[in-house]
């Protein structure tokens, strides 16, 4: 076995992925430095950092960054805590455990567009939606979720989708839990809370890191749920960075500003990546 072969095996994946990254990146950098509005084809030319200035000074910008982080943080928190809870709940056998597992993971297979429409209409509609009717049943005034709590509504939808994923990972991790150790600790009179604190949570540590990592990758760019439900509104109340770039690109047709925004998103992604490498990289090295 020479040293050439391992590289040869890696080459196709690395080359294609590199191209997939570098070509759009170079084009984006180029577009971000020129005047490039699809509605004004006659206006062209190099304009330096004007696009960046426009994107960053846009009042929607701060709101979008805040919403992105809020969405990311809330969903990760909900899914990690909920996922651990659910995984522990169904770790030991009980009647109907197989069926519970199947039903529980189902939302993960639902496409984001369906997820969004399902919640927007059938759950959160202020008149006919199920939630409105439950509210009414208890004598409360139905809430117009998407208008009054737009970001919270998106957080619910996205959490509903990703909770099963987190649960799946934790179920998988719990399978390798040492039964003898649990039994021994029980013999020694450990309470469930102590087991949780000293056996389960440490065992799940790396899985938590993995869930955070994967969700970060997907949740930094939540798009379909916002596009199909609130359209980023009302105002910018549920606009995240990805959706703001989309607004510039396809609603104002300003490819130049959108590209500047995209480069900002790359920076944001890289900050997240550095954070991740510190957290996950260390964890996975063992």
């Amino acid at each position, binding site marked *: 076995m020479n040293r050439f072969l391992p590289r040869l095996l890696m080459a196709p994946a690395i080359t294609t992925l590199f191209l997939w990254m570098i070509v759009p990146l170079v084009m984006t950098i180029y577009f971000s430095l020129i005047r490039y509005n699809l509605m004004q084809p006659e206006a062209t030319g190099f304009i330096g950092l004007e696009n960046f200035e426009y994107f960053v000074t846009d009042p929607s910008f701060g709101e979008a960054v805040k919403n992105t982080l809020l969405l990311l943080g809330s969903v990760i928190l909900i899914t990690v805590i909920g996922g651990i809870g659910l995984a522990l709940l169904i770790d030991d056998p009980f009647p109907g455990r197989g069926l519970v597992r199947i039903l529980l993971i189902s939302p993960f*297979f639902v*496409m984001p567009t369906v997820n969004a429409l399902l919640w927007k209409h059938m759950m959160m509609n202020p008149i006919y939606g199920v939630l409105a009717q439950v509210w009414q049943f208890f004598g409360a005034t139905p809430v117009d979720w998407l208008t009054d709590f737009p970001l919270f509504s998106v957080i619910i939808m996205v959490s509903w989708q990703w909770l099963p994923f987190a649960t799946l990972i934790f179920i998988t991790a719990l399978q390798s839990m040492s039964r003898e150790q649990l039994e021994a600790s029980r013999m020694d009179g450990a309470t469930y809370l102590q087991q949780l604190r000293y056996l389960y949570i440490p065992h799940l540590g790396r899985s938590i890191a993995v869930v955070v990592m994967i969700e970060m990758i997907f949740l930094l760019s939540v798009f379909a749920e916002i596009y199909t439900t609130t359209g980023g509104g009302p105002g910018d109340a549920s606009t995240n960075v990805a959706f703001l770039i989309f607004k510039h690109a396809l609603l104002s047709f300003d490819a130049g500003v959108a590209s500047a925004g*995209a480069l900002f998103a790359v920076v944001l992604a890289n900050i997240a990546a550095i954070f991740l490498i510190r957290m996950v990289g260390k964890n996975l090295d063992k």
Partner: protein
Amino acid sequence: MTSSPKSSMTAMLALRTFVAWFFTLLLFFPLGWLALMAFKTELQAISVPPLFVFTPTMENFHEVQERSDYLSYAWNSVITSVASTILGLALATPAAYSMAFFKSKRTKDILMWMLSTKMMPAVGALVPIYVMAQWSGLLDSRTALIIVFTMSNLPIMVWMMYSNFKDIPSEILEASRMDGATLYQEFRHVLMPLAMGGLASTGLLCLVLSWNEAFWALNLSAAKSGTLATLIASYSSPEGLFWAKLSAASLMAIAPIVVFGWFSQKQLIQGLTFGAVK
């Protein structure tokens, strides 16, 4: 506690069963409700209070197929997700093999770099990718979707296959090499049987991700190569109350992958460790 340990255990089991079922039904409810809706008439769909018992109708499904050619969208979904999964596995498996068994100083950096490419929001690459698709005449083609799906899943696939291979002791491979196995034989007869579980679960996850991919499908495809995700988006226009039809279309879009997921969940779970469990 006055009760005997045995009866308290039974009580615990009953409680756990109840709580587990409660949360499960709560989480599954939206999906179950969607399925019920699909068999209602439009009037029943918006009745107050909600109807749980009614005579099911198949009308909505007929109408969805007639109004928008469901089968053609479904076929596009099948082709693009299966092709991108196969292509992705073909690219990811050798790379992951090489990283796991011929570890160099840079292996971890390469892995992290791969994952970081996935963190840029797809919308950031929208303009360049759109322009390139236009230049190459691949706009609204299945080829474009297959390429895009493959590339956006590739980092995750390499990661999963890598952690899967890493769990295989390299002594086994060395032994087979000592016995004079060629690289192909080693790959085919020693490695693959051991890595089959991880391979299956990587493939399954990517199948699900591609099937559900909405951003690129919405922006790069139209009537010709549109997948089911785009079909659903076309039902989101607010023209009157149309929940029953919307539900029917949604159910038709998700049923194949959900049922597929149900049957393959055991395999999926097996390999979903991402190297987190030893």
